Each structure stands twice: as structure tokens, then as C-alpha cells.
């Protein structure tokens, strides 16, 4: 099962626009995607659920784990990594 660990560097964390973008991206893939907050030692939750993602309390600097399983799992994971690494599309680089 494709899985990855990544740090969220956005100043608001997974909240507001970044959280919405994350959930929208996850929702555009057919596979099951789960996310957990490694820093807060939280549980895996549905990455397509905005409420669940918000309750993880992912602040700036937290590490998250993303698991994807099923159709287009690799593509979904790649898209989510790209989103987080580009600081949710706000990086100038």
C-alpha cells in the first residue's frame, strides 16, 4: 500500500484554505486515502473528510502520514505530496 510521511510547513497548518485544498485533492481520486498526525500521535482518518482533517490539529511543522489504497493510489499520493511540498501552491519557488 503506498504510504508517505511529510511535514506541513504552511503557517496556518492544515486549516482554512490548505485543509480545503487537501480534502478537495484527495476527493478527486477514487481510492481510499487516510491521513494521521504523527507529531500529535493521532489516529488515521478519512482524508476526504474536511471535519476529520481539521480535528487532527495539524499545525505548522507537524509531520503527517498519508496512506492510499485502491485505484490510482500512487497518483493520489503523488498529487497530495506535491500539494504539501508546494506549500499548498503558495511557494514562489
Amino acid at each position, binding site marked *: 500500500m503506498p504510504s508517505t510521511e511529510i511535514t506541513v*510547513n504552511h*503557517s*496556518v*497548518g492544515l*486549516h*482554512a*484554505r490548505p485543509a*480545503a485544498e487537501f*480534502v478537495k485533492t484527495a476527493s478527486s481520486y477514487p481510492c481510499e486515502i487516510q491521513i494521521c498526525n504523527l*507529531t500529535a500521535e493521532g489516529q488515521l*482518518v*478519512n482524508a*476526504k*473528510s*474536511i*471535519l*476529520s482533517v*481539521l*480535528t487532527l*490539529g495539524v*499545525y*505548522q*511543522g*507537524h509531520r503527517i502520514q498519508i496512506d492510499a489504497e485502491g485505484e490510482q493510489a500512487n497518483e493520489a499520493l503523488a498529487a497530495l505530496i506535491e500539494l504539501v511540498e508546494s506549500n499548498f501552491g503558495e511557494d514562489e519557488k
Partner: protein
Amino acid sequence: MSPLVKGIGVSAGIAIGPGWVYRPIKVEVKRFDDCDPLGETTRLDDALAEAKSQISELRVRTLGVIGKEEAAIFEAHLMFLDDPEFITAIKGIIDEQKINAEAAVEEVVEHFAGEMLALEDEYFRARAQDIRDIGQRVIYCLSGVDTKSLELPKEPVIILADDLTPSDTVQFDRRVLLGLCTVRGGPTSHTAILARSLGVPAAVCVPFRLDEIEKSALVILDGREGELTIDPSDEQVSAAKTNQTVWQADWQTQLAAASKPAVTLDGHTVEVVANIGNVGDARQAIEYGAEGVGLLRTEFLYMDRQTMPNEELQVSEYKEIFDVMGNRPLVVRTLDIGGDKEVAYLGLNEEPNPFLGWRAIRMISERPEVLHNQFRALLRAGVGIDLRIMIPLVSNLDEVIKARQILDEARQALINEQLPAAENVQFGIMVEVPSAALMIEHIAGYVDFFSIGTNDLTQYTLAIDRTNERVADLASPFHPAVIQLIARTIETARTKSKWVGLCGEMAGDPLATPLLLGLGLDEFSMAPTSIPVVKQVIRNLELKECREIARAALGLPSSEAVKEYLSQFIV
């Protein structure tokens, strides 16, 4: 005289008018067992669709009336309604427990709200209000409550409420909205944001008793001070009316002239700059005529996190603020934090006397790398701007020498790594401890400037914890001992050709302006909203006369006497 209740002012201005106690319709959710799951699921689907169409309508309305940022609140609400976990959880409960849809919605909403309230960060906790707002709407739709039938004010009123959700706030007609005042909420709540963008006076965290307010009782709301007066006397009303007229007229004139320099009648110019803590403040500062920044607080970088902010992150956060300020002078205060805050990775522990403990610059003996990293990030971000760095809570010369040495090392390290480093950076200290004020002559050789922090200087000079309500009243920067220390600091620094700023609340108090001008202060740094008025006050003063005023004030024996004496110069 009616007593006033004080909270936090979040949107400036004065409103006088009938109070309108706003209580959203509370649908009492009753739980029914043995319901038909299929029927309840259909009701739920219909209600969700109805709620969605209502919110879309609110979103469009907000977009038109207020703006894009505020409308985003409702975009988030639409996402909540589409949330698969939310819907699955409600339907699961309907299926398993055979209860009515209303009870199932309430259960799931409270579950998510509870999880959000368990988080530490205020912004995350505030989302509990959003999910409850959504839940309430779905329950209205299920119960057939028409929210449009809710009685709304038709004449201009001041809305008084326990708390206001975004949907509550946007339904009020702007033309009948004189002001907003809530018992709960904070400076970052939706109420505050919406009120500011509507230009309506507002206060939050005001501890009034909603039940004790009679229908249409007259109230006065001061959104600058965060004060609410219920059932005011005739005198209070006429005083408020005068204040309101004066405030509006003054505010317009002051704002129009805010970007012009602050020059006294006899041609003496001082710098009027802002105290800021984030990029939003920086934009507001420019809008209100700040000529620069006299205090950039940097604690925001270190709070609400588990590890040290890395250098790249610090650089990018600083740059964002520096870009807004352009080539205006900008004073950054290095980390000012202590045992009253929980920041584990800095090694802060709970202390019996955190304000007298291991905090601010005192950390350098054990944790020099914290300051070293901050200096590196500041030097990298500050290339090409007029950057000034100051260290807080200095009480000994050693601290200044050590900090300066760390700054030199940080610059050298950047040069060795062939990274860009800001040049001609001024280095200064905060004068907040009486010992520093009494040692200016010894410190002057190591610094370019001094900035007096009157809030702490008052606290440390008078031995008053200003967070302790029982004694906070006694903490006046007009106390003779405090103004003596300010006078001494400025005078001694001048003989050593160093400039002096002041960044406590006193700088933004027009009562103190003639005194500070007369003492020879070079830079006044204050909350952005105070800038237009203080500039105006300065323009109506004469430096020569202010010197006399300062001399006379220094001879007075009490805070009250000083304040009374100065009040005659307020025009």
C-alpha cells in the same frame, strides 16, 4: 450613572442606540426512538439539500455586501455539508439506533465540535462554532423552521448577543446595524472580522448579563475601548454623543492627514511608527500612516509548535512582513518569552515568578543558539532594508555584550557560507527594567539606540503585576518614578548621541504626548489605530512649550497629579 462593562474593543467607533438582544432560534432537539430509518434518511437528505441552497445564497449575499474573504467562511460550510464522514456518521446512527434525524445530527455535530475544542490552537478551536452553526441550520431545515421569519431589527440598533455565528452576523441589514457586542468571542472571531470590514463599532468578551437587559434599553458601545454602558444617564448619553461627533470628525481629519509627517508648530519632527505582530498588522500600520515599525514582536514564530522554527521558515515569515514595510525603518525585537507560556522545546518551565525568571534575553546563557538562529534569519531576510534589531529585558551589561557578539558571529557565519547578510543593521536594547534605565551611560557604547518599554518598565519599577486585576489600576506609566526613569534614559542617551524610542501603550496616549515630546523622545511607536490621533496632537504642539511642560511634570508627586496637570494641554 450606569457602570460600564469592559471587554475587548475590536472595531473602532462609538455607537449610541437601542440595544437589540439577539437570541438565535433555539430548536429544542427531542429524541424519538423507533423511527423508520428509511424515512428519516430521506428527511435528512432533503434537509441537507435545503441547507446547501440556503448557504449558497448567504455566500452570494456576503460576496456582494462584504467581500471575498468573508464569503470563504460559507464556502467552508458547504464543504462541511458534503463531508462524507459527517453524512455517514449521521446515517449510521439513524440506521443503528432508529432515532429521528434531528437527534442524530445533534449527536454527530457535538462529537466533531468536542474534538475541535480539544485542540490547543485558537483558530482550530474556533471551527467548533462553524460546525455548530451548520448543525443548527440542518436542524432548522429538518424542523421546518423558516430562518427568514426570525424577527430582525428594522430600526437602527446595537446588537447584543452571547456569541454570533457568521450566518447570524450577515443576516443583519447593514443599514440598521449600529454596533455589535458579544459576551464571548475573541479578537480573531468572525464577529470582529466582519465588523471591521463593515466599519461598524464592535466589542467582544464583554461580560454583561444578557438576561438583565430590558427590551430596547438604551446602550452606548465604545468599540475603541471595548466598553458597554447599559441604561446610561442623560449626562452619559450627551457625553457619548459629543465623543461620537468629535471622534467621527477627528477620525476623518486625522486619517486624511495620517500619512503626512508629525512636525510640531515650531518645526521639530519626530518619527511615528507602529507596534506590530504579524503581516496583517503591517498592512494596517501603513494604512494608518505609520512611518515604519518601532516594535515587531516575534513570538508568533515560536508559539503553538513543538519544535524550533527552522531558519528557512523564519526567513520567509520575516520577508513577508518586511516586503509590506518596504524601505521604512523597522525595529525587530528578538524573542521575548518566559515561564508564563508553555513552549517545551525552548526549555521553558512553569516558574513561581515567570516575569522575574528565565525569560527573554536571559535565555542566552543556556540557549545561545536560539538567538543565533534568529539573528541569522533576520540578517538574511533584512538584506536591503533599514533593519534594526533590539533585545528585550536587559538588566545587565553582560547581556548586551554577549548578544552583540552572537550577532557578529551570526553575520560572520553567513558570510562564510556565502549567504547574503544585511549590512548597517542598527543594534539596540529595550529599556524595561529600572537597572537598565540607570545604566544607560555604560550600555550606550555597545548600542545604536534604546527603546523604552513602558508597560514592563512600570511593572518592574512599581512592583505591580499588571495582569493581577486587584492591583493593575496602580500600574500607571505617569508615576513620578517611571517618568523620572524615562527622562533619565532619554537625557543620558542624548549625551551619548543615541536615539531613543518608546513602544509601550504610553506612546499612543495623547495625554502623554506633550510630556514625551518635551523629554526629547525621537520615536513614538504605538498600535496602528493610535497613529492618526497622536500625529495630529503632535502637529498642534510646540516643542519649546513641551519642554516646560515636561520640566513641570517631573516635579509632581503622584500619577494623579501628573495626569491632571497634563490633561489641561489636551486640545
